């Protein structure tokens, strides 16, 4: 029996994929992707709140600043309930729970092969019911302290954080997602509840599910397990405040020493996407991806030349990161002459700006990304992550698929100018001690 529960079916016939999208009366969105034949069932419960949301205008209108690392701290603490650790309960059900905090999002998730209903109920219940005590908060400081130290010994991570600190003056992306030992020492239950109450609100959250399940059942489980407290909650959410950031970079060249064999580098160009619509940001991302592959990817003459000259190795990677309404192009890798790599990049950009993008390159690279996008649909985890991320970005389920079908060479040509401004460039190097 199919109950008309107010869901929408969205389909992509060419991919052989579809989703059921359902908005719960509380404003919470559920996106369910059926995957017949799969053993794995995956569900995530996410909030559009991450490490960069550390200054905000709360629901009463007051401006609040919280210590770095609090979103991540909250993520850890939510697993501890009054009657014990939620992890134990998932473990007894034989499922794999996990969670992560990124710059812009916190996600609680599990994957299982049976007992989906019980696991799903458990997920929805613990995320809606934070239980925080002074003792458990203090104990967590020592565990997270070890996590912070683990990252401090990781040269890739250290290089990236140093790079973000050269690029940005005040944007909170400069802060370690987990914070510092000092910043987390300032966290207490009051601050944690404040952040929870201001951001963990149904209209700011998405549940994504994928697997060989009955959509009626999934919707019913959501209806039965989202509390009336949530249904009655007001629609408002705290508004994150990111202080104005100058267009230029904070520092041009920073060096640090660590136990590495070859110097690691990260350099890039700061970019701004303020005021750009979600679909235009997505088109910009795809155009950037294509542009950067043509210019600097494994299929480029640039890569071949620098690899043969011994200036870069397999670890070299160039990408574009966009977070809500700002972004940056970054180059990372290992080299004994990082400055020479920077010079080569600037020269290559200038050369291609004179000749323009070759249509053969554009078509080839576009076909490459069309294929790699399709591959993502192999994985229930990947499907859920995409659906959640796209929802938070204000995009529809198959917008990216459509964009790949309609993007033109001009979209790529037009961003070739203006994306590689030397004034917005900074370099970070992590080198060995001797």
């Amino acid at each position, binding site marked *: 029996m199919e109950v008309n529960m107010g869901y929408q079916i969205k389909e992509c016939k060419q991919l052989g994929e579809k989703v059921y999208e359902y908005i719960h009366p509380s404003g919470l969105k559920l996106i369910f992707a059926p995957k017949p034949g799969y053993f794995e069932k995956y569900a995530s419960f996410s909030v559009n709140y991450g490490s960069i949301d550390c200054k905000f205008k709360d629901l009463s209108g007051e401006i609040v600043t919280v210590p770095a690392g609090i979103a991540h701290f909250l993520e850890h603490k939510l697993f501890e309930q009054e009657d014990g650790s939620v992890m134990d309960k998932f473990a007894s059900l034989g499922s794999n729970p996990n969670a992560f905090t990124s710059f812009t999002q916190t996600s609680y998730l599990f994957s299982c092969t049976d007992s989906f209903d019980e696991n799903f109920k458990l997920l929805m219940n613990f995320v809606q019911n934070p239980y925080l005590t002074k003792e458990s908060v203090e104990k967590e400081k020592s565990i997270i302290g070890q996590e912070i130290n683990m990252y401090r010994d990781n040269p890739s991570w250290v290089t990236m954080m140093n790079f973000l600190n050269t690029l940005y003056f005040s944007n909170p992306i400069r802060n370690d997602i987990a914070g510092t030992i000092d910043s987390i020492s300032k966290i207490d239950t009051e601050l944690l509840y404040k952040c929870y109450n201001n951001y963990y609100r149904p209209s700011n959250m998405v549940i994504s599910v994928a697997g060989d399940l009955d959509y009626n059942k999934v919707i019913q489980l959501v209806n039965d397990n989202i509390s009336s407290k949530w249904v009655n909650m007001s629609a408002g959410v705290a508004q994150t405040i990111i202080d104005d950031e100058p267009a230029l970079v904070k520092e041009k060249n920073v060096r640090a020493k660590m136990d590495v064999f070859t110097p690691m580098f990260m350099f890039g160009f700061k970019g701004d996407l303020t005021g750009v619509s979600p679909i235009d940001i997505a088109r910009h991302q795809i155009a950037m991806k294509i542009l950067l592959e043509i210019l600097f990817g494994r299929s480029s003459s640039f890569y071949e030349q620098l690899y043969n000259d011994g200036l870069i190795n397999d670890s070299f990677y160039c990408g574009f990161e966009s977070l809500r309404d700002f972004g940056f192009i970054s180059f990372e890798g290992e080299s004994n002459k990082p400055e020479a790599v920077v010079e080569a990049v600037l020269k290559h950009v200038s050369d291609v700006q004179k000749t323009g993008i070759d249509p053969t390159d554009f078509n080839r690279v576009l076909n490459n990304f069309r294929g790699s996008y399709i591959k993502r649909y192999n994985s*229930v985890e990947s499907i859920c992550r995409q659906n959640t991320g796209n929802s938070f970005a204000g995009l529809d389920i198959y917008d990216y698929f459509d964009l790949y079908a309609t993007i033109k060479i001009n979209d790529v040509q037009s961003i070739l100018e203006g994306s590689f401004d030397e004034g917005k460039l900074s370099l970070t190097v992590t080198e060995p001690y001797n």
Partner: protein
Amino acid sequence: MIKEDRISKVTEFNGIEFYKIPENKFKTFTIGIYFCDVLNKERVSSNAMIPFVLRRGSQEYSSSMAISRRLHELYGASFYSDVTKKGEIQMTYFSSDAVVDKYIPESENIFRNLTDLIFGIVTDPFLEDGKFKKDYVEQEKTTLIDLIETQKNNKDSYAIQRCFEEMCKDEPYSINEGGDIESIKSINADSLYDYYRNFYLKKLPIKVFITGEVPDADINYLVDKFKSIPREEIVDISKVGIIKSADPEVNHVIERFNVVQGKLCLGFRSNLAPSDDLYYALTVCNTVFGGGIHSKLFQNVREKAGLAYYASSRMDKFKGVIIVSSGIEISNKDKAMKIILEQLEEIKKGNITDVEFDSAIKTYSTAVNLLKDGQRSIADFFLGQTLLGIKTGLTDFMKNINQVTIDDVVKAAQKIELDTTYFLTAEE
């Protein structure tokens, strides 16, 4: 032949085995070609160099750039080659995947085109003066040496590696699958090409796995291509991985680096092989010990004592070893070691709760089911089984796990002996 409806052996000739794992639920198909050798100092470095040099170019696509562009044309097909080991078998492999034709309306037999590309890379390398291009060889020597040196960068995994190196110093297991720097330096284009043509291609056993929605006609197309490789007496890899016992005295090793956090590793001998009756009990035992959130290590080292962000145990079934690793504050080393060893003692005494045991079985069964959703993980599992000469498929594997009792776990635990401890700590 492995008993399992998910996999079938297509054929075998000249020491080359072909397996197919048909599955229509994936958007992609995969091709995996594995060359196997026993881990030995004489050949390990040359073997390791081959996948790196071959990926640099074939006769038809003479550079990495050309190969990369061809992969783009095949709608984002991927290709990578690398070296790894399973127990004391070194494997160099060539792995590829691509989207199944039906998802790209205008595509034309991606599988056959990809087969041509990969087969060319593996058997028809780009040559200069009748041997490997000198520049390619010299550059890849640097690549491989860098990779070996870079293993030190990630201190968590480096500590595990070092523990095994110390524990098994007189056994092939301690040989780094990438080879050793001195031997790599002495390799040149001549010697490597000679080795490649006259030993690697001719004598190493090869296993090929094809997964996904691939018509039999296309599989036969791939199989037929391999008939053209000249083959001679094939290296015997069946007698590897002798299970060894621990020495009576535990070996304690400390090394110092510039680190903030200490990495503690404990290496144990399990004294059990996958062919032993107690093997499945050992698997469950390891999970109870340190294989997940419910495990004794996670609960006692991390949750109760707050000593570590991670504390887990991993079993290498090919060698009969178990390794515990944990990242801790340096001053907590003795405390952590004590708690870790206590957990194993508890299991030996039979102090295992129903919750710990049931969670372990469930977690394992989930892991096995999840394997079935990954094309490469299914192939990897069966590759392991063929190397071990074990005919158990995934369904029977799970049946055996479900039959394990707490008593069996205790019996298996009692065979576990501490062999070596390794502590990576800060400079004095």
